[in-house]
């Protein structure tokens, strides 16, 4: 008798129900996401030069994403687990299709055109990887053994590799991190993390020694874009001016000069954080960060309350990934981190990322809803 069937029996039901009874919605999550999205639309209106059509499109995207959120939050986590390997494999297939005949946009090949919509399979991978890791560890005792770690490494490195080929290093990194965090939560020993970290740090001087001058220059520009103000550093300098001139209270909505005089590149997408900082100041940014942290905290709380390995790992992994999104984007805009193309969750203009983020949040809600049902 397999372990999963034991659990099926103890679950008190012999039939897999695709949907839970009634509509279950996690109110705190709902309120926070809607608040962030509204803030996003308000700032987008300013960032795109007061064009209401761009805001309308963004609101429409959020509407679609919100619908996805509602639907996903109704799926039973158990069914999710059964579907996981299939979803993972299909997304992997889509990634390969992107490489073979994807649509080129912005110098990289990351879009897949399916009739009416274009989307980035790499975005979906950000959810699939934590799901797959959680699925793999579900039946196995924690913490993972060494051979299991190797399999887990493959699960998140192979898709990341495919994404890096597009080339989209930012997303590849995020996929790796989302998988890595889930493994971390699965009980990866802290000593092993320490050893891996030390090995990575130790290999840097060796790698550096074998690199050619121009490669070193590229790495330096990547790590510190401000050393190349005529190229990659231009964005950073402009976004720092936008943030810094915003001060504590900001210049006020629609009054951001850096953004409106078009000094700040990519102000409606990856650098929208700087527009918020310019117009709403430090206080505005802190409010946004509080909203994000609340959402992440709620996710971690759900993870702590969840009652199976799959649910715990998935909820925890998704929450941490969400935080990484926020930190990498804001770190990039403030010049703390290298410039990688990572949007600000639920705020940056862009469709696929919005939908996958809301789907991820929907998974959190679904896990929480299931727990309640069991308890009742």
């Amino acid at each position, binding site marked *: *008798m397999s*372990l999963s069937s034991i659990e099926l029996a103890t679950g008190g039901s012999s039939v897999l129900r695709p949907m839970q009874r009634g509509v279950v919605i996690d109110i705190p999550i709902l309120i926070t996401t809607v608040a962030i999205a509204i803030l996003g639309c308000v700032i987008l209106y300013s960032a795109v030069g007061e064009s209401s059509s761009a805001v309308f499109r963004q609101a429409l995207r959020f509407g679609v994403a919100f619908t996805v959120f509602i639907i996903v939050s109704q799926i039973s986590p158990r069914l999710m687990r059964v579907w996981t390997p299939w979803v993972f494999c299909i997304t992997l297939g889509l990634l390969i299709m992107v490489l073979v005949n994807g649509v080129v946009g912005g110098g990289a090949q990351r879009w897949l055109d399916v009739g009416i919509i274009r989307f980035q399979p790499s975005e979906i991978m950000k959810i699939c990887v934590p799901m797959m890791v959680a699925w793999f560890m579900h*039946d*196995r*005792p*924690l*913490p993972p053994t060494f051979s299991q770690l190797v399999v887990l490494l493959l699960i998140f490195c192979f898709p990341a590799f495919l994404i890096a080929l597009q080339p989209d290093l930012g997303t590849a990194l995020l996929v790796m991190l989302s998988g890595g*965090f889930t493994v*971390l*939560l*699965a*009980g*990866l020993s*802290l000593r092993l993390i320490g050893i891996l970290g030390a090995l990575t740090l130790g290999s840097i001087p060796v790698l550096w020694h074998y690199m050619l001058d121009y490669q070193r220059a590229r790495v330096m520009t990547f790590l510190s874009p401000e050393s*190349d*103000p*005529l*190229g*990659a550093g*231009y964005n950073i*300098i402009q976004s*720092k*001016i*936008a*943030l*810094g*001139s*915003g*001060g*504590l209270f900001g210049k006020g909505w629609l009054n951001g*000069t*850096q953004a409106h005089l078009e*000094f700040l590149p990519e102000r409606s997408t990856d650098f929208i954080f700087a527009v918020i*900082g310019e117009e709403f*100041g*430090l206080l505005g*940014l*802190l409010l946004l*960060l509080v909203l994000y*942290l609340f959402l*992440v905290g709620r996710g*971690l709380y759900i*993870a*702590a309350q969840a009652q199976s*390995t799959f649910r*715990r*790992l998935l909820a*925890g992994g998704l929450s*941490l990934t969400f*935080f990484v999104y926020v*930190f990498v984007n*804001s*770190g990039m805009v*403030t*010049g*703390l981190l290298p410039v990688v193309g990572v949007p600000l969750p639920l705020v940056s203009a862009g469709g696929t990322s919005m939908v996958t983020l809301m789907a991820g949040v929907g998974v959190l809600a679904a896990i929480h809803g299931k727990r309640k049902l069991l308890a009742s």
Partner: protein
Amino acid sequence: MSPTVPLKDYWKEQKIFLSRLIVASFMILILTSVLVWRLFQLQVVEHDFFSELSQGNQLRIEPLAPTRGLIYDRNGVVLAENLPAWELTVIPEQVLDLEAQLQDLGAIGLIPLEYEGLTELVRSHRGFERVKLANLSDVQAARFAVRRHQFPGVDIQEGLIRNYPFGELTSHAVGYVASISRSDLDRINRSEYAATSLIGKSGIERSYEVTLHGSVGYRQQVVNAQGRILMDPVLAANSRVNLEASQVSLETRWPLPGENVFLGLDIELQIAAHKALEGKRGAVVAIEPDSGDILALVSMPTFDPNQFAGGLSQTDFQILNDDPDKPLFHRALAGHYPPGSTIKPFLGLAALHHRVLDPDHREMCPGYFLLPGHSHRYRDWKPEGHGPMDLHQSIVQSCDTYFYQLAVNLGIDNMSPFLEGFGFGERTGIDILNENAGVIPSREWKRTQFAGSENQTWYPGETVITGIGQGFTLVTPLQLAHATAVLATGGQRFKPRLVIGTEDPLSGTVSKSQPVLLDVMSNIEESHWIRIVNAMVGVNEERQGSGRNAMRGAEYTVAGKTGTAQVFSLAADEEYIEEEVDEYLRDHGLFIAYAPVDHPVIALAVVVENGGGGGVSAAPIAREILDAYFIEDIHVSEQH
């Protein structure tokens, strides 16, 4: 339940998970604190500085162009330099009415009257970026200076323009620079070129672009809405804002000048070679045998590289490009020619090495050759025949019949690898672009180049004509000179190179690069080399020698070989088909030589397109060049 399935301990797992969750929460807390601290730094501590920057005043990053490295010949004569020039520039956001201003500038003759292209150029830049409109002469600069107040936002600036003192003489070796094009943008790091408007397009200027260009610098300035500099670390006197108070300093990084490059070229010899070939179409390549240094590199006709640096109009470029004589085509590196009889010394050496004939045995030359069992007559250039011939005389008099037989004895399978050993059939690897590989045919080559089994088969008749450098065989003048240099050194192959060293302009440190030895043919007997060399000396000294007329009375010993290449039957030579059919179908004249014979210092190849026989067209040119090298003693005269 199977005992091999490990049981899950839910209680323990929950504990592990919760402990990890706590670790993760701490990480989140720490990272968030870092972020908030950073935001506080930017938005509160440095707020004053940044608001100064954004309140109408802007931080401008002014790129500073590096000075391009100079190019010298082997004796330090300057072949490419930078001359000061006036540049007319505009800062778009400071101009009120661009169209009107450009029109006025055109009216006083500073920019072309058709300025649509310039309007587009200015509009494609960001408002605060300085855009170059034109180069100005001193007179034009003076004309602008008195009217400056009428043109807000327009200014003259000192810049540098590339100049080639020897003009068309060095264009095919040194190359030229021209405005950065769209295709250039794809292969360069754009920020490195933020202040540079010219880039190497061909020759050394292209292949040593990275060395010559240097590294861009920049300086940060604070400017007001009118573009006036308020704060500049360099112009500290203009500073209105207190740098200390803002806690942020403006950065300056000076550009690093490009390195100077020394060529192996000897400009006096280059001039002599240019003069000797002037008015003809063809190429001269002279190499120092024991280093591979290129002493002279001429492709005729040529063009003036200064035209490109100064900004060549589309019409002028079309004229150059459409010229039927193809001045832009690098004949010395990319021109494919049948080697004709210049291939004979190499094949003679191959025959000796493979011992397929007795070199002293005399064979009757009736003026034609027959393959056993075939009736086709392979004709000698001398219809009445050369009489009894040994290897020596057949090189001296360039007897075709003897070499038809020699080729049959050797066979194509021996010929091809031996010729490839001298560098034929592959790029020599010279340090400038656009070299062609030539063709050394073989059974394998024919199989891969043609379709259909009939065309893929190697026929005995093709071996026969390969023996006199006709048929499929194609070489470049550079390959011929290179192979001649290998003959001169008795089998040492040095990679041909133009650049022999670089100089750091700041420290003055010169770093010389070592010659690259590609191969040493140690397996060929000394006596074989000597036999071939003696025959090549005979070409110029013996009574019947094909180079005797040209080399009569030379004050140095020369080993040489003439060649005459038929063109009319060749499909491969597509360059000249349309106009002046008669002239363009005449034979190419070739000559290879090295001198002095006992300690060679120069090896060269001369190709004269459609010049007729090599002995009368190419050999006299070689004589002129060698005379210039040895008699006029340019090495002494250059010590000034």
